[in-house]
């Protein structure tokens, strides 16, 4: 490559034309006949940017449903005496009216809790988060025209969609959706006679999640292949922006762990339908001794958590990647310790496969085995701590722009610290004896992989919204959204630590039976009110989101944030193929902010003569 010096003010397009790589794209650009009609363009699209938006909007749909469910069961917990007859038009027979007072039925309480977990974990924070941003950013930040297989990518979305249809249908069954907890432990999930939700509701739950596994695998194969094979010239692995590293490791985790979950699901299906006994042993239920012996319910837990634990990193790693990028761009500083950040992602990814049994300390597994899981689990604290310190140091000496994306990234770091630290309690099996299955656990995982992951997602949405829709979201509403959610989320989950420390178990329909648990009425009311406020703020976000698609402030320049990565070199309304003409060639890492007195230097800018690369 000839040495080219180009002033920062020159358009990136000229730079790409001068230094880019000619893949003869223009020769078939106009021949993209698959994308010409409305259906091909917006529905069965193979353009990764459209698929990303499909994942995002579907995710928002599910997030609203999942969050609304939590409001209903929070009403039960915060205001157990309140009259809920007014929800009867929506929930029908699940609101039981006695003496004119309507209350939530027990079965539906558990169905709501179960669906809330399933929907948020799988449909929102896996598909909605990783699906959206992996699709959007992997080709754009790597300088690729699309995913390695746009067709499989399209299938990935439609399998997710189908999974959603099946799950949505199960909400309307007369026996209700599955109600045995999102982990679906047998025998409760295996025996229809154990619970009304374990009948058809559970069958559909299994079908839906099996379709979902297919979706994740199709997506994951694509992400991995694209990262390995379609990086543009000059984009070595060690020059990839951190979101890509995160998506890459996330996809590997998904590819290795989801099939194990699927195998567990298949065994559960056979136990349900074919009379096998993988997970059943010596059961007496409904006045009948079952002829099913030799299995072990603990085996299911092993299979489930072999996915389940990597799954929490599948959720949080993309958020970490997004936040790393956003913090760096808006602090106008390189991310601190890029190499350490990558290594810690890899370390967390690796460790996530050998810690699953820390969910099972109290499940009757041999206590001796737990020793190993304690050690591995608490080792994860080290790379996590490194990441936190690096994020904070990224702010040090920065020149910080507080837009909504940046605010949510800072909020993410706060949430990750708060939720991560409580993990040190729970990962230590001795403390887990006390805290297992209490509200302490609820607080821990909601903060560290619920709120934190959502904050990462919001940061990503606000930050890349112009890339997706060519307009900006409203900043004032964004700030209201941030501060309200930040304060509200802590108001919801901080007090739950106290409940847990007092011993209050999770998944209780009512605390009235136990003297030890029933004296937290005011706190439960406070939590419920906070949850309603936070939910209202999310509705505001959704309004802002859809309003801005049509009426938001227009994006006038290609690179509004002065960011270095390649997605900001594409045309504002990039078509399928992302770059007209040549694709950009990369000459440096993604984090040359504030280097050599320049505010930022894009990745496509060649090194000046005698310039030392920023990552060395």
């Amino acid at each position, binding site marked *: 490559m000839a040495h080219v010096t180009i002033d920062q003010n020159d358009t990136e397009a000229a730079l790409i034309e001068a230094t880019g790589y000619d893949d003869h794209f223009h020769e078939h650009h106009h021949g993209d006949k698959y994308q010409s009609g409305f259906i091909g363009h917006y529905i069965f699209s193979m353009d990764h940017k459209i698929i990303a938006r499909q994942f995002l909007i579907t995710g928002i749909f599910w997030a609203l449903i999942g969050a609304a469910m939590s409001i209903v069961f929070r009403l039960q917990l915060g205001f157990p005496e309140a009259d809920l007859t007014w929800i009867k038009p929506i929930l029908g027979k699940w609101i039981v009216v006695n003496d004119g007072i309507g209350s939530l039925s027990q079965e539906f309480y558990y169905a709501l809790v179960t669906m809330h977990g399933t929907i948020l974990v799988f449909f929102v924070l896996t598909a909605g988060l990783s699906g959206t941003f992996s699709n959007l950013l992997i080709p754009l930040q790597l300088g690729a025209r699309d995913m390695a297989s746009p067709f499989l990518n399209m299938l990935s979305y439609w399998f997710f969609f189908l999974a959603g249809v099946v799950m949505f249908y199960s909400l309307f069954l007369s026996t209700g959706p599955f109600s045995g907890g999102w982990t679906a432990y047998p025998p*409760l999930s295996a025996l229809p006679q154990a619970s009304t939700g374990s009948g058809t509701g559970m069958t559909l739950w299994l079908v839906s999640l099996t379709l979902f596994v297919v979706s994740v695998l199709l997506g994951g194969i694509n992400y991995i292949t694209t990262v390995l094979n379609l990086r543009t010239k000059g984009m070595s692995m060690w020059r990839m922006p951190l979101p890509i590293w995160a998506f890459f490791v996330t996809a590997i985790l998904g590819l290795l762990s989801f099939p194990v979950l699927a195998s567990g699901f298949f065994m559960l299906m056979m136990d349900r339908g074919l009379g096998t006994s993988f997970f059943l042993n010596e059961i007496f239920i409904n006045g009948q001794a079952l002829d099913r012996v030799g299995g072990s319910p603990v085996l299911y837990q092993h299979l489930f958590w072999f996915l389940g634990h990597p799954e929490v990193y599948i959720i949080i790693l993309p958020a970490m990647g997004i936040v790393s990028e956003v913090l760096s761009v808006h602090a106008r500083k390189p991310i601190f310790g890029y190499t350490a950040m990558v290594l810690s992602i890899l370390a967390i990814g690796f460790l996530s496969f050998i810690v699953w049994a820390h969910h099972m300390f109290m499940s009757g597994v041999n206590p001796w085995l737990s020793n190993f899981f304690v050690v591995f689990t608490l080792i994860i604290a080290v790379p996590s701590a490194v990441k936190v310190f690096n994020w*904070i140091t990224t702010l040090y000496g920065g020149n910080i722009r507080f837009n909504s994306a940046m605010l949510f990234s800072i909020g993410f770091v706060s949430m990750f610290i708060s939720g991560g630290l409580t993990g040190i309690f729970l990962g230590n099996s001795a403390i887990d004896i006390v805290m*297992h299955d209490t509200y302490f656990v609820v607080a821990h995982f909601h903060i560290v992989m619920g709120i934190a992951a959502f904050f990462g997602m919001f940061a990503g949405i606000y930050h890349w919204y112009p890339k997706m829709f060519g307009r900006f979201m409203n900043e004032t509403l964004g700030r209201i959204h941030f501060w309200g959610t930040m304060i509200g989320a802590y108001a919801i989950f901080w007090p739950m630590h106290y409940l847990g420390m007092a011993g209050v178990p999770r998944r209780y329909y009512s605390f009235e039976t136990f003297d030890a648990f029933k004296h937290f009425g005011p706190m439960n009311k406070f939590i419920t009110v906070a949850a309603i406020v936070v939910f209202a703020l999310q509705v505001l976000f959704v309004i802002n989101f859809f309003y801005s698609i049509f009426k938001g402030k227009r994006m006038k320049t290609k690179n509004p944030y002065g960011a270095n990565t390649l997605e900001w070199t594409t045309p504002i309304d990039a078509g399928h193929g992302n770059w007209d003409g040549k694709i950009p060639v990369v000459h440096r890492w993604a984090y040359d902010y504030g280097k050599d007195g320049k505010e930022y230097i894009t990745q496509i800018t060649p090194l000046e003569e005698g310039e030392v690369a920023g990552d060395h």
Partner: protein
Amino acid sequence: MTALVIIAIVVLVAIILVQLGRLSEVSAVIRGEELAEEQQNNRTAIFMVVFLIGFLIFCIGSAWMYKDRMLAYGPHESASAHGGQLDSLFNTTLFFTGIVFILTHIALFWFSYKYKEDKNRIAYFFPHSLKLEIYWTVIPAVVMAYLVIQGLIAWNATMADIKPGEDHIEIEATGYQFAWDVRYPGADGKIGTKNYKLIQPGTNPLGQDWTDEKNHDDFFVGDELVLPVGKKIRVRITAKDVLHNFYLPHFRVKMDAIPGLPTHFIFTPIKTTAEYRQELKDYPEWQELSDPLDPESPQRWEVFDYELACSELCGTGHWAMRKRLTIVSQEEYDVWFAQQQSYYMNNIRNTKDDPYAGQLLGMEIKNRAREIKAEFASAISADTMSTIRLKNVFYNTGSAELKDDSKYELDEVARILKENSNVKVELGGHTDSQGDDTMNQNLSQLRATSVVNYLQKKGVMANNLVSKGYGENSPIDTNDTEEGRQNNRRTELRIISK
């Protein structure tokens, strides 16, 4: 109507906020976007510090407010021996994580404030520092190593099983939808075997195998478990239908109950219920009325009870699987224990489910031997000539032939009579009123004789023994019921000289 008003208000607020958002955008354009952004940026930077201060006050203040309800000290101390170790590990972890929590939050929000955007400045290019990164890899690693070691010591001590020969009480808790059955081993200290296929709701809730003698003295408790303070308790934990979890919050005990896979948890209560109540007495949270609506109700500490709950989702009634647990002194426990009734003896013995129906059990023979010895002793020392009923002497129907089971009682009688050769006794036979009077008279005489013959064979001197048939003339109960008739058909031993 209220719903409509609420919806209307929500919609209005949303519209106002959206308009506000638009307004700020438009006004920014008028004022000049850069200036507006700068002002906004400075304002947000100040919010960062305000949030930091407010957040830390909220965290520390709320912890102070709730300290008596949740911190592992004072009124919330563990009531078990191992629990103290777990609690102190919790507190240690809270100490370290508390420091990290506060310092990182101060750094996060303070840096955010301090390094807010200044258009005339370029950020400090600081991509990495090996030294710093080594510090914050090594320091967390050292702290974690310390916590892991402490944790594993506590864990392995808590989970260690009973050593052979170690003094302990083993009880069994079985979870099912939606309650617990708690079984105590009875006097033999051993819990009998069970098989889920033998479960009969109502008559055999756990599927106890009645051919196992260990089951014969096992008993159940109702709403209240009682255990002695200072004694190692091993709870064998099982389930009938789905997963449950045996959870004693005050004792830091928690373990899944799994159908077909027994688990266990071992703990030692260190405070009786009465002692725990005394400790709670001093805290305002516990001085509230136990029933806020009833001003006459006792204070909360006075009615405090340890509780057993389920902590593994098991279906719709998961939240209501409550039992009380009362810890008492060893003496009180012994008294309570002696009062408990064996389930088998009370509900199964001599029913169609009893494999030993009509047969004597080893335990019954032993008890009867002890009993008859005592009866005899008191009969000899009494002034009058008393009668002892030979409860376990049986004959084949309509015949004078002794059943095999009779030998246990008669052997004991023979032993006693041989030791007391100065005592003369009369063996009297009695029948019920069924059948012909003469035949009954003859049968009773024959039966008395066959007892005398047996005792002679066992070495009792013949002149100390007299046999007499009373027929149906001396009933001790009504002859109108089978039970009464059964009582009337009897063999008695009467001391006639001593």
